[in-house]
């Protein structure tokens, strides 16, 4: 019952061309910036959009090919939308029962099953309410129940948590994780939030400009980003270069000393927390010390995130206290330093 999809869609100037495979019980997160084409991929998988090319199969069933298109309502799938899209004119129970009714289940039976599912997602007793009478988190739980009640082979989640406030998001994310673990079918989750992807997915596919730029487990992607977008998402500074031993000549000029040996084209990843800032060139002889200019500084909890420009562009997190003591203003010259052992290096 593995989902295999090669999706080709031309949308204006953007050509989406993405390959995916999801095993039963697996959760695949499609991560990418807005406009990268990830929602387009999801709409094709749902059958809401006829692709311009490619092929979608699940198990032995062909859903999309140049010759064939199975419309959405004939695909055994469930979908959860960003802003739940519960039908406002139906009660919560009837919303959840909707998919059973369209597939021929008798009304009483459908409502009974729907109520069981409401209980499973923690909405017991809310069945008679209208969607407008539910909170955002309750509505999204109901939407999940509505998508899962028909025991679909494919579950599609389109930014399921992004409309929720931070606190609700945390609890709903945890519940979603539990329900996904119990779900036997394939799941594809689309998100632009790395935390959702990392917390919920077994595997992550990063899509940029309609192409897959990176694929792997959440941990792999977080540790070794391969594009600036992913690096920013996971909070790393990414520097491409060429390694010889423990020295990397960066493509943009400058050099970085690393703790590990490497050869050939590599990425260097620097965590902002490991970067130290000084007003004058630090004493002693640290191997990695570069002059830079402070471009922007944004408070970030108890730290201040400092974007640096120079031969080696970096991001540095310094404590608010340290930042105040340095007395830095945007445009100020600084020195940045990183220990070689804190620098990650991996092949390009």
């Amino acid at each position, binding site marked *: 019952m593995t989902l295999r999809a090669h999706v080709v869609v031309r949308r204006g100037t953007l050509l989406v061309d993405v390959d995916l495979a999801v095993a039963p019980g697996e959760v695949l997160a499609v991560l990418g910036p807005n406009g990268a084409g990830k929602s387009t991929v999801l709409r094709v998988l749902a059958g*809401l959009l006829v692709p311009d090319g490619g092929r979608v199969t699940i198990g032995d069933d062909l859903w999309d090919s140049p010759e064939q298109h199975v*419309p959405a309502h004939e695909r055994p799938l469930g979908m959860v939308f960003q802003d739940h899209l519960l039908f406002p004119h139906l009660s919560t129970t009837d919303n959840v029962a909707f998919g059973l009714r*369209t*597939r021929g289940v008798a009304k009483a039976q459908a409502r009974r099953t729907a109520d069981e599912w409401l209980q499973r997602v923690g909405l017991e007793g809310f069945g008679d309410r209208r969607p407008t009478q539910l909170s955002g988190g309750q509505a999204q739980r109901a939407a999940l129940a509505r998508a899962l009640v028909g025991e679909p082979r494919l579950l599609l989640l389109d930014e399921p948590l992004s409309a929720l406030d931070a606190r609700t998001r945390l609890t709903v994310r945890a519940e979603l994780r539990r329900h996904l673990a119990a779900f036997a079918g394939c799941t594809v989750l689309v998100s632009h939030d790395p935390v959702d992807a990392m917390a919920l997915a077994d595997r992550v596919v990063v899509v940029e400009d309609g192409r897959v730029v990176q694929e792997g487990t959440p941990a792999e992607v977080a540790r070794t980003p391969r594009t600036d977008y992913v690096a920013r998402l996971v909070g790393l500074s990414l520097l491409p270069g060429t390694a010889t031993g423990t020295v990397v000549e960066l493509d943009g000029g400058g050099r970085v000393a690393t703790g590990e040996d490497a050869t050939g084209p590599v990425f260097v990843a620097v965590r902002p927390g490991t970067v130290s800032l000084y007003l004058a060139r630090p004493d002693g002889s640290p191997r990695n010390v570069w002059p830079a200019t402070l471009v922007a500084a944004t408070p970030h909890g108890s730290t201040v995130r400092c974007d640096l420009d120079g031969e080696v562009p970096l991001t540095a997190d310094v404590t608010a206290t340290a930042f105040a003591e340095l007395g830095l203003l945007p445009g100020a010259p600084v020195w940045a330093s990183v220990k070689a052992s804190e620098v990650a290096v991996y092949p390009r």
Partner: protein
Amino acid sequence: MPLPLLVPALLGTAFLVLPLLGLLVRAPWSNLWPQLTQPAVGQALRLSLLSATLATLVSLVLGVPIAWVLARSTIRGRSVLRALVTVPLVLPPVVGGVALFLVLGRQGILGRWLYETFDYTIPFTTTAVVIAETFVAMPFLVISVEGALRAADARFEDAAATLGADRWTTFRRVTLPLVAPGVAAGAVLCWARALGEFGATITFAGNFPGTTQTMPLAVYLALQSNPEGAIVLSLVLLFVSLATLLLLRDRWLGRSAVPS
């Protein structure tokens, strides 16, 4: 309330309401009852209500699908279709009546066939009244419903599709309930327009008491010989339509209101 809104609003209200007050002031209150109880009045009123209601039903059955095609389908020439179905809005109703003759009249394209095959003619029958009223009033419904469909979030229809609903089921169980207030508003507008219809009706259906003489026709003809009677008839039409609209409005508001 800001003055630049309040003043024109008051002026506009006065402009719309004063002519009605004029009717009330000039009404022959002393012999209202004898005027009202003329059998012709009840006959014309019944015919008006019946034909306007039938015209609204026909408009719903035919007009809502037109609105759906205009708002949801991707067929080519939709803007041409929209322009065509709204033509009756700008067409002088009398011309509409003549046009109906040319299609459905005894000598018309379809009417001739009906006449020669079944010996059936549409003009000068109550059916003709309903057809004339539908012709003039349906565009109001189509435009209202299309507006409601465009304003409604089409993603609900996507959601329904992912839940196994084909387009017809989606239309019945999701789209239609979502735009119900718009359909209701369109139906009311359509009904009101049909109730007041004059030009196309008197042209295509003629004027005969009991069969085709609706209230507006009765009012117009009474104006020729008995202006007082015409005022009474106008007031009856006014009162019945206002009462109906207010009644329906309350019911719909009561149903669509969401307790918070």
